[in-house]
């Protein structure tokens, strides 16, 4: 069957939510998949909320929006509260455990829980939260190949940010590791 | 025995709600000063505020009084419409520099020319805050904005406009001042200017405006303290503070009432 994923990244402004989505989109393009990326803009921006929808597909994409995403990464608690119930049955929810109040309860979806903010701080930079979460997503569902993500990421960071290459790669890897691990563990 | 007394608390004229302003943005300070003055004058129940299109678009939610939301730049026209049918009410506009000095310059000049008996609080932050940091007519030479990415080029875009000086030239203006919000001292001065402006209106003396130099840490890409320093060091020299028009009647008023 052809691949078609509707993915939402949701969190606070400043958590790198939009860039996380863009990285996925650039990677999908590099893999010659069809892709759309839409930020939420407007009132939320100032309220501190940031999220974006990425659709990745083997076929041309009609609607770039969806009611029921197949994958969601929630960076914080309000996002978890908003999106948990919307995910398609059989879909995937990646949760930043560091900033939630109650863990997700749905059983008809696949869930990856990881304390991404804490892990990022451990890696030495809270800004790595988004890479860890994206890594986890890809660990669990390889919508795009990790190698392509890495290549695209280094390209986007460029030489000006060469000092951040290692850190970013490490964060992706850390996330992927957890995604893979939980995959084995909780595979349905 | 000692007692504790409250020496500072939220003014009544300000609703007890959080604002959407960015951390350190002095729009919040300006709001508070206006609210304090309105409380002190005791006119909250007969004041109508007109909000602009700009970061202060929700001002009507924050002031605890009747309020309306104008089209971008047209607050002075809207205020004119209100004041002409409610001459006993206090009517003020609260406008940003894009709103007042760009799209709405015709309306503010003509309100001043007509001597429209309203008060304008003019927030000059040298940028279009709400739309994400484009050049305003008040943007300083060389200042980088999203629409002057290599810095404002005066050859192509001209020099920043000084609204207090310009409006002071209108015979219909009773009181025009420029103050700044970059320090506690200046904030206190600003409040006195705002009080004078409203008093001028209450006495029916004509148009009054207080221009307030204000910070936009977000779009200037500075921390809140850096932003205040920028106001002081970069804006104030280009936009000198002071009173630009004080008619004799207004002067008499401030003398009398203190």
């Amino acid at each position: 069957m052809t691949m078609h994923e509707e993915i939402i990244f949701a969190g606070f402004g400043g958590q790198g939510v939009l860039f996380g989505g863009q990285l996925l989109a650039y990677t999908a393009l590099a893999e010659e998949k069809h892709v759309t990326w839409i930020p939420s803009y407007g009132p939320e921006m100032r309220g501190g909320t940031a999220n974006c929808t990425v659709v990745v597909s083997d076929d041309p994409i009609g609607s770039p929006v969806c009611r029921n995403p197949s994958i969601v990464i929630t960076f914080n608690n309000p996002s978890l509260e908003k999106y948990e119930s919307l995910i398609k049955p059989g879909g995937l929810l990646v949760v930043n455990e560091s900033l939630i109040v109650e863990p997700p309860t749905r059983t008809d979806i696949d869930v990856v829980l990881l304390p991404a903010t804490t892990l990022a701080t451990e890696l030495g930079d809270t800004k790595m939260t988004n890479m860890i979460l994206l890594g986890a997503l890809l660990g669990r569902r390889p919508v795009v190949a990790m190698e392509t993500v890495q290549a695209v990421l280094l390209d986007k960071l460029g030489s000006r940010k060469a000092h951040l290459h290692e850190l970013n790669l490490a964060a992706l890897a850390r996330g992927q590791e957890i995604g893979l691990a939980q995959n084995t563990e909780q595979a349905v | 025995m000692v007692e504790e007394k409250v020496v500072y608390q939220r003014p009544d004229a300000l609703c007890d709600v959080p604002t959407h302003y960015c951390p350190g943005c002095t729009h919040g300070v300006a709001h508070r000063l206006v609210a304090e003055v309105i409380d002190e004058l005791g006119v909250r129940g007969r004041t109508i505020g007109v909000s602009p299109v700009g970061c202060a678009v929700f001002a009507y939610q924050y002031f605890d009084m009747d309020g309306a939301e104008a089209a971008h730049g047209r607050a002075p026209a809207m205020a004119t419409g209100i004041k002409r049918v409610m001459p006993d009410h206090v009517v003020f506009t609260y406008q940003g520099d894009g709103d007042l000095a760009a799209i709405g310059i015709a309306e503010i000049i003509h309100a001043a020319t007509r001597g429209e008996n309203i008060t304008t609080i003019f927030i000059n932050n040298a940028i279009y805050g709400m739309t994400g940091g484009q050049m305003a007519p008040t943007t300083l030479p060389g200042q980088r904005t999203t629409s002057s990415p290599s810095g404002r080029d005066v050859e192509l875009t001209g020099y920043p406009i000084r609204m207090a000086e310009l409006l002071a030239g209108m015979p219909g203006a009773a009181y025009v001042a420029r103050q700044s919000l970059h320090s506690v001292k200046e904030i206190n001065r600003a409040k006195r200017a705002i009080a004078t402006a409203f008093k001028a209106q209450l006495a029916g003396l004509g148009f009054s405006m207080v221009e307030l130099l204000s910070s936009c840490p977000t779009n200037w890409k500075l921390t809140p303290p850096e932003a205040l320093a920028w106001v002081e060091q970069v804006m104030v020299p280009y936009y000198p503070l002071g009173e630009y028009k004080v008619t004799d009647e207004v002067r008499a008023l401030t003398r009398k009432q203190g």
Partner: protein
Amino acid sequence: MAKGRIEIREDRCKGCTLCALACPQGVIVMASDHVNAKGYYPAMLNDAEGKCTGCAICAVACPDVCITVYRQVPAKTRPSAAV
């Protein structure tokens, strides 16, 4: 020196640091260990020595009207009102 005290509404604080920088007594500090519901590191009074004078400078500086200021004054004996 007058004695004072402030209350900061932590939920409203946006962590801008302006009050802390303005306080002449240096008794306002920014939290570094916790964020408020909005995700900001809030300002806090740190005045173990009771240096706050209730001058209200912090309150005037705060763009978010988070600060209420109290000052100690000699209690006046109120004449009991004749009913």
